[in-house]
């Protein structure tokens, strides 16, 4: 190992003092980039990471396929008579559940980055402060879109027929991605707050599992006990899955869309500032 390293150093071309000097003279700083430009640059960083480490797409491809197949055939016969009938009800819900579950990887990637020096460099740049975090989320929005498309394809293959057509389906996915973008600010907060990747995963599971299962993703809440209905009917995940289900079925569930966007706005307003406070204090 040490021999290899020293050989490499030997072979390294020397530093050219003259060209370096010339570069330094001409290198005054241009005006700072806009908030949008900085955020998009960080988003591009997330894309480059996907390009170099494509394995990280596993959770937005294999995992969603597994979710659709598993729940359709596991519950389909018992709950709706047949898997084919159940998928009409389940697909929008399982789409919401899987994508919301995937959001928790945001916290893990923020947390692993903090450990590295590159975070310190970003924090010494004169840019719009939240752009680093927005960049993560823009990259993740792409991942959510990929997961949605993958699941929809599987659903169509096994018999899902949305009455809303292309327009309804696209509107549903757009709402889901927008909600997940907002929801992810919870994870940027935990990513900055908690010390290890493992604890981020642990806390995420504690939040995600009850939140996604205690909803109307799998079944109509009317059979649940009253106290549970009170929770389920007011859960943001229930609102979101009703909205997505409605949009994909060709209805215009204005109230549910409103609730979903309202929750999304609340998540950004609460967890955005907390995230930024932690980011500045880190």
């Amino acid at each position, binding site marked *: 190992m040490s021999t290899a*390293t*020293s050989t*490499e*150093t*030997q072979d*390294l*071309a*020397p*530093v*050219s*003092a003259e*060209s*370096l*000097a010339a*570069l*330094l*003279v001409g*290198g*005054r*700083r*241009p*005006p*700072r*980039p806009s908030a949008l*430009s*900085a955020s998009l*640059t*960080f988003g*591009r*960083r997330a894309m*480059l*990471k996907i390009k*170099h*480490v494509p394995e990280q797409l596993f959770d937005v491809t294999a995992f969603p396929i597994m979710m659709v197949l598993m729940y359709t055939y596991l519950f389909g016969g018992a709950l709706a008579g047949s898997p084919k009938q159940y998928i009409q009800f389940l697909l929008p819900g399982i789409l919401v559940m899987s994508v919301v579950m995937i959001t928790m990887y945001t916290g893990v990637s923020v947390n692993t980055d903090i450990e*590295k*020096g*590159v975070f*310190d*460099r*970003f*924090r*010494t*740049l*004169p*840019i719009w402060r939240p752009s680093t975090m927005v960049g993560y989320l823009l990259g993740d929005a792409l991942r959510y879109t990929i997961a949605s498309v993958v699941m929809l394809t599987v659903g169509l293959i096994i018999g899902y027929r949305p009455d809303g057509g292309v327009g309804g389906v696209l509107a549903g996915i757009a709402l889901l991605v927008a909600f997940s973008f907002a929801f992810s600010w919870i994870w940027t907060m935990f990513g900055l707050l908690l010390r290890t990747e493992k604890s981020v995963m642990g806390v995420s599971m504690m939040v995600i599992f009850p939140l996604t299962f205690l909803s109307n993703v799998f079944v109509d809440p009317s059979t649940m006990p009253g106290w549970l209905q009170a929770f389920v009917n007011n859960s943001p995940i229930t609102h979101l899955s009703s909205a997505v289900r409605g949009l994909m079925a060709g209805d215009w569930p204005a109230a549910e869309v409103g609730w979903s966007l309202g929750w999304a706005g609340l998540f950004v307003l609460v967890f955005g500032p907390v995230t930024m406070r932690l980011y500045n*204090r880190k």
Partner: protein
Amino acid sequence: MSRHTNGLAIETAGLVKTFGETRAVDGVDLAVPAGTVYGVLGPNGAGKTTTVKMLATLLRPDGGEAHVFGLDVVREADEVRARVSLTGQYASVDEDLTGTENLVLLGRLLGHGKKAARVRSGQLLEAFGLTDAAGRQVKHYSGGMRRRIDIAASILSTPDLLFLDEPTTGLDPRSRNQVWDIVRAVVAQGTTVLLTTQYLDEADQLASRIAVIDHGRVIAEGTKGELKASVGAGSVHLRLRNAEQRPEAADVLRRTLDAQVQLEPDPVAVTARVGTATSGDAAEQAARALGELARAGITVDNFSLGQPSLDEVFLALTGHDTHTPKKDEVPA
């Protein structure tokens, strides 16, 4: 410049940072003249990195004040960021990305257009001898290459002040010399450099003024000349043939050099400090000491004249070496 800065790039007064019970930085006063290399010398855990992080707006001081080009590092953090760059102890680039991708990304974040960022990255990679590695992920770079890409990232836009936190720790001598050349080129173009290091010779090679820091405090500060006058320009290291002759040898050295003499753990080794302000030229003194030893019939197997080590500097300045905790400190 509208602000009154007294020609100082950095000015701190009573800077404090505590982590729980530990006072990592305990009242640091610095005055760094613009356009020079300023060395901050100290052992691990002395508070060097914490100080740099506060000056680079990464950490908020718990007490005292710090100004960079007259700008307050807390209240005017954004303006400070526009004028500084930091190369941290660990590679401050994204290891998953290639050299080019890293530099283009940072170029864009500094406000360069797409094309300008590409051109500038290409030029920097070439100047740093990294053109061949430009398309490789940084995680496959050697230590020396990482340092280079790291410094290249810091001067994408020429900063007015560059922080280099232990830039050569862990590098082989050749890569180390190359980093020194880069630092000289950067400062020659008018950038102020604050360099932290554990190595006295590094500070000696590059810095015009040096602050020695220990337990979060500045224990000595001055030009290289002033610092050397207080610790001595160098040390004579002797290894004797017979351990029994060591006390006698120590006596001879003390008499001829009028200097502090230290008996090393090795029973045949002696070290004497030479070249202090009171005792004169180091080489001439060393020669005289050798002659006196021969006259006294003491056989010297090995003789060397070197710069004092950081340990010796600390011994001279504080009376304890870098590893010994202070008396009031509870051992962990």
